[in-house]
């Protein structure tokens, strides 16, 4: 519950309906899509303008109240769980696409716009905003920017950070910060735009973003390749890239994922295979057709047992449905799904998958691995039950081992979901002590009181690596 004086101040800024501290509102802002985490805020606010965000932040900094920015709460790193209480600031009322600029190929949006809404709006104009997290139906652009979300098209088109040209954001003290603009080139000082991307709500509240658009590809085509042997699949991935073909999507599913998806969706996946790759290319028709032919050839010569090219765009969608079904299928198998986000250089994918399976066996756990093979971003997914505390303990140990392995292979602890609360103990493994010091310095420069999303990214209890234990 909010102190009555503070509540009165907030109400005078936002109006009665947009300041809530009843139990119902607090409970329904105590979680996000990350399993096992929950904590109650003291209140929830719903600003609708930059000015209102500024006013709320001024009140918050005056009274040292934590502020947790929130889009749809779909993140997977417990980034919107208000561990230190305070206010959850829901950005979904700021949901206008302000401009689609066809001359400069940019879109200017408020942070609460759903990613898919933007896709639909720009595609109507023949334009394209490539970042496509699987959650795009619900995730907001503000959330995408704050997490630097990636998606299936990451390999060819990059991730959110490659499409943000400028930002308007409100600092902890209520000041407005503007970075970048509609410029494709801009080296005036430090790149604050990039700094805010992936900052997980700890540096500023994003109130507006100018995004880069590109022309909508003319056509797309997909193929699926089956493998008896994990290494053969990995060889195909490397060979495609070293042959200088950049498919827009290059997805991987391991044996267990194939089995589960097939049992659920019955779309004719080969359950006896070790792995399948799903590849999609887009662009001018001739290029797409030529690339698909070359990819088919590469897959066949690197050890695929079966390759099937979709004949039409619609058939291609059918092929990719396998990947989209993965989550639904896995989610139905056991009550709790813990989807992780370890990333390795793509040449180490086979090693990593093998290591994940070894760890799963060691701890006697059920793990299915799928992910973005093209950029080495794997999602080892634990199928478990939150109520089984003994099993959850094993899951946590297994995760530590998986991150350890990812780093050993030259990878990272998260490719697109962010550090948040869930991975804060492991951050130092990746960035080192110097990295932590610099990052904390940056945090202090933006938010000296530490009111913006406290408890996230940094932790007082870092984990020791096994070798140092």
């Amino acid at each position: 519950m909010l102190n009555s004086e503070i509540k009165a101040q907030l109400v005078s800024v936002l109006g009665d309906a947009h300041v809530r501290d009843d139990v119902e509102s607090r409970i329904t802002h105590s979680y996000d899509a990350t399993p096992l985490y929950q904590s109650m805020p003291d209140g929830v606010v719903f600003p609708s303008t930059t000015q209102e965000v500024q006013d709320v932040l001024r009140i918050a900094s005056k009274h040292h109240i934590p502020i947790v920015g929130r889009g749809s709460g779909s993140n997977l790193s417990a980034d919107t769980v208000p561990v230190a209480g305070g206010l959850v600031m829901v950005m979904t009322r700021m949901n206008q696409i302000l401009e689609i600029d066809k001359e400069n190929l940019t879109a200017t949006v408020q942070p609460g716009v759903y990613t898919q809404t933007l896709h639909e709006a720009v595609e109507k104009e023949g334009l394209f905003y490539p970042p496509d997290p699987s959650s795009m139906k619900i995730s907001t652009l503000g959330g995408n920017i704050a997490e630097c979300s990636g998606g299936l098209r990451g390999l060819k088109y990059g991730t959110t950070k490659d499409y943000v040209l400028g930002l308007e954001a409100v600092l902890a003290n209520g000041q407005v910060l503007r970075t970048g603009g509609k410029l494709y080139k801009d080296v005036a000082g430090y790149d604050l735009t990039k700094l805010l991307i992936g900052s997980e709500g700890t540096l500023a509240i994003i109130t507006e973003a100018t995004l880069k658009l590109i022309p909508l590809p003319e056509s797309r085509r997909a193929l699926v390749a089956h493998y008896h042997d994990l290494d053969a699949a990995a060889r195909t991935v490397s060979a495609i890239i070293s042959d200088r073909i950049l498919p827009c999507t290059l997805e991987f599913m391991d044996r267990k994922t194939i089995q589960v998806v097939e049992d659920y969706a019955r779309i004719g996946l080969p359950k006896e295979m070790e792995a399948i790759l799903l590849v999609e290319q887009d662009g001018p028709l001739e290029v797409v057709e030529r690339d698909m032919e070359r990819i088919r050839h590469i897959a066949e010569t690197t050890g695929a047992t079966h390759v099937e090219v979709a004949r039409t765009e619609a058939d291609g969608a059918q092929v990719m449905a396998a990947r989209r079904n993965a989550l639904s299928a896995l989610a139905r198998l056991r009550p709790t799904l813990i989807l992780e986000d370890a990333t390795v250089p793509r040449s180490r994918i086979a090693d990593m998958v093998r290591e994940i399976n070894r760890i799963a066996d060691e701890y006697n756990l059920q793990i299915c691995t799928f992910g973005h093979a093209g950029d080495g971003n794997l999602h080892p997914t634990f199928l478990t039950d939150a109520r089984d505390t003994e099993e959850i303990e094993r899951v946590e140990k297994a995760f530590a081992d998986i991150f350890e392995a990812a780093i050993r292979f030259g990878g990272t602890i998260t490719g697109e979901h962010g550090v948040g609360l869930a991975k804060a103990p492991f951050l130092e493994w990746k960035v080192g002590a110097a990295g932590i010091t610099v990052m904390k310095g940056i945090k202090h420069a933006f938010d000296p009181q530490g009111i913006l999303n406290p408890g996230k990214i940094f932790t007082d209890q870092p984990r020791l690596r096994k070798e140092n234990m």
Partner: protein
Amino acid sequence: MVQPVPAKPKKTDPAVVTPWNNLGRQLAHTLDEDELTNCMRCGFCLPACPTYRETGLEAASPRGRIALMKAAVDGWMTPDESFRNQMNFCLGCRACETACPADVRFGRLLEQSRAAIAEHAPITRYEKTMRHLFFQGLFPHRSRLRLVGALLALYQKSGLRWLVHRTGLARLLPPHLRQMDRVLPTASMQGVVERIGTHVPAHGKKRGRVGLLRGCIMDVAFADTNVNTARLLSAAGYEVVIPRSQTCCGALHAHSGEERQAHRLAKENIRTFREAGVDWVASNAGGCGAQLVEYSHLLQNEPKLAEDARWFAAHTRDISQLLAEGNPLPLRSVPKRVTYQHSCHLKNGMKVSQEPESLIRSIPDLTYMPLNKGEHCCGSAGIYNLTHPETSMHILDEKMNDVKETTADILVTTNPGCLLQMKLGIERSGLASHMQAVHLVDLLTESMEKGDDPHNQKEK
């Protein structure tokens, strides 16, 4: 868990015995914990939910409602007035189920919550009386419903309606009820059995024996549609039986928390249709059908009935499914523009969405006009338009904007509640002069019986 879960309220502490505390205890006891755990809080259901779209509030979303239920079960909160309001605010459209990757059966959780609320939450005497009147006194009793129907018919035919409107008495009613009164179909004393008996033989190659659920409101307000249903089934090769001893499906009871009554009705229907020796049980109302397929779940704790209940649920079909599988109907030309509004319970509960559309498309010379967001709830939702008029009318008006865009002459639905709501929507949006709402069955019948011969048409 970042915060320790508070201890569940102690059962023996007399100081905390309030109706709300009892409700909390009941929820902890009856809510399906697996279902609650299955929700992975991904939020995919949010954009599908009409009450979330209306309010933008997490608490009015499926994920939020589940979180509230779970909080009540885990002891994070004592359910209160706002908990009840939130459960009542839900339309029960189950669009969230269709959107959910984890297959969380929200409808069941909602029914369990409402049952606990009906039993434990404080309630005014007036509300209690009204509930009793409707759920025990009226719906299960065909003769009484018919009497109400007769009164309604009398009111409609006797000029009393005219008088009420002319004298301004109608102005005492809230506007949407006044409009509702204008679109109410002429109720009928004669239900389907009174008109065509309990048995209709099959035409052509025989496809099976079908037991028709005549429904309660359907058989009073839309008895013609029931008659047409039987005719279509017969034309498609089904022998139709309409057992007299069948009763209300219990959907309205289950959705309103009258769980025990729903059980009783389910048992009666299972016995009746089992005894009738049918291959299929057919429903022509999405709301009823979705309840029928839940019978096995409803009676899962009654081992003696389990097998019959499973049989019943597995053999329930929507009329559109049976027609799509039966002998081709002798359809004739209807040169109209037609659009289709899904019934939530047909689509999200029975998972039927293709068949009605392809039946409509199979009518010669008809132009099918797709309805943008046709899968969004129309806001009728049982008696929701009476309990939450404002939200219901707002959802309806949004829907009518999309309906207008189709420029259709005919708007087809598959459920009496939706049909009435669409008629109301047409009235409200000033489309009444050039658009009508009809049940799928009535459109097909019209095509079969009154449509032009397509060959003649073409020769013209």
